[in-house]
């Protein structure tokens, strides 16, 4: 093989990758708002319910507060089909590997909400068995405080996540 061929090849490869990335960026820039809009109104939930906050989660899912008005009412009990994991309740050290495994099984794009003060910071369980916040295990997008939080707070947290999804960049093609 001659030296010129190698150089020629490199130039070709570089140009092709340039073109691909330009095309990709253009497609993303044009389609991102629409894709984000459709994502934020069709969140499939995975409720990771470990403690008493679960009762409040049920009331939000019920007809009175009606999470369905934001298109986020549908619980999928398989993480592979879910976009959004709700960490509802205390995460213990024994539970932590399970939580990380569930999170790793979810397909991109995916989001996480820490529901209640135990999932956010460990709450008042500053002891031998409790993880001091689920963000020590997986990345969290929205933290909802409260013990347990009011349904209005939860809907507010969901709206915050929806706003965040709307302003996201670079997650069209993963």
């Amino acid at each position, binding site marked *: 093989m001659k030296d010129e061929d190698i150089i020629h090849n490199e130039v070709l490869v570089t140009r092709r990758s340039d073109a691909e990335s330009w095309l990709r960026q253009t497609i993303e820039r044009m389609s991102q708002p629409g894709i984000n809009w459709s994502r934020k109104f069709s969140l499939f939930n995975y409720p990771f319910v470990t403690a008493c906050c679960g009762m409040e989660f049920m009331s939000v899912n019920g007809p009175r507060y009606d999470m369905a008005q934001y298109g986020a009412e549908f619980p999928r009990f398989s993480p592979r089909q879910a976009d959004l994991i709700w960490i509802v309740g205390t995460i213990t*050290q*024994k539970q*932590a*590997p399970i939580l*990380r495994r569930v999170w790793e099984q979810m397909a991109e794009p995916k989001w996480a909400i820490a529901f209640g003060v135990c999932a956010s910071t460990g709450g008042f369980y*500053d*002891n*031998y*068995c409790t*993880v001091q*916040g689920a*963000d*020590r*295990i*997986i*990345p969290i997008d929205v933290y909802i405080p409260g013990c347990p939080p009011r349904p209005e707070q939860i809907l507010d947290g969901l709206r915050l996540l929806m706003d965040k999804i709307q302003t996201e960049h670079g997650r069209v093609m993963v």
Partner: protein
Amino acid sequence: MSVLALEKLKRRFGDDILESHSKLGDDTVLVKAERLYEVAQFLKDDPELQFDMPIDNTAVDWWQVSEPRFEVIWHLYSTVKHMRIRVKVRVGEDNPTCASLTPLWPGMNWHERETWDMYGVRFSGHPNLKRVLMYEEFVGYPLRKDYPITKRQPLIEERIVREVPTQRNPPPDMLNQP
């Protein structure tokens, strides 16, 4: 109510009952650790007592307060005579072992496993003495008074968590950091 039980126990076992009281209606006996099984057998089988229901098993750690260090406590209830009794045993720190009452009351199984899990008190004769709440990798007994109060033993590596910079909580000036 079950002052009767205390009297019967004292008559039957004599000096093996170290202490007893029925303060505020809580009938309590402190028995010698070696005679625990016989005392429990008697409480279960005596036709006037019939303590047939196990309520609870727990322990108290008297670290640096009194010797012997651990006090293991059983709560029993008689569904026939409607009486309650509390049976206590003291075991030392170097060999915290006492008889298991699971052969008498199968319902004591998980209670005694929990006491083993939290205090490290061994129950000889227990069919399946292993941790029930904590994980097997856990070292030490978390409810002992000498366990560090915030010592945690994570099973997986934790992510590094930083303060989230906000308007109210501005990010630290990186140049001034040492």
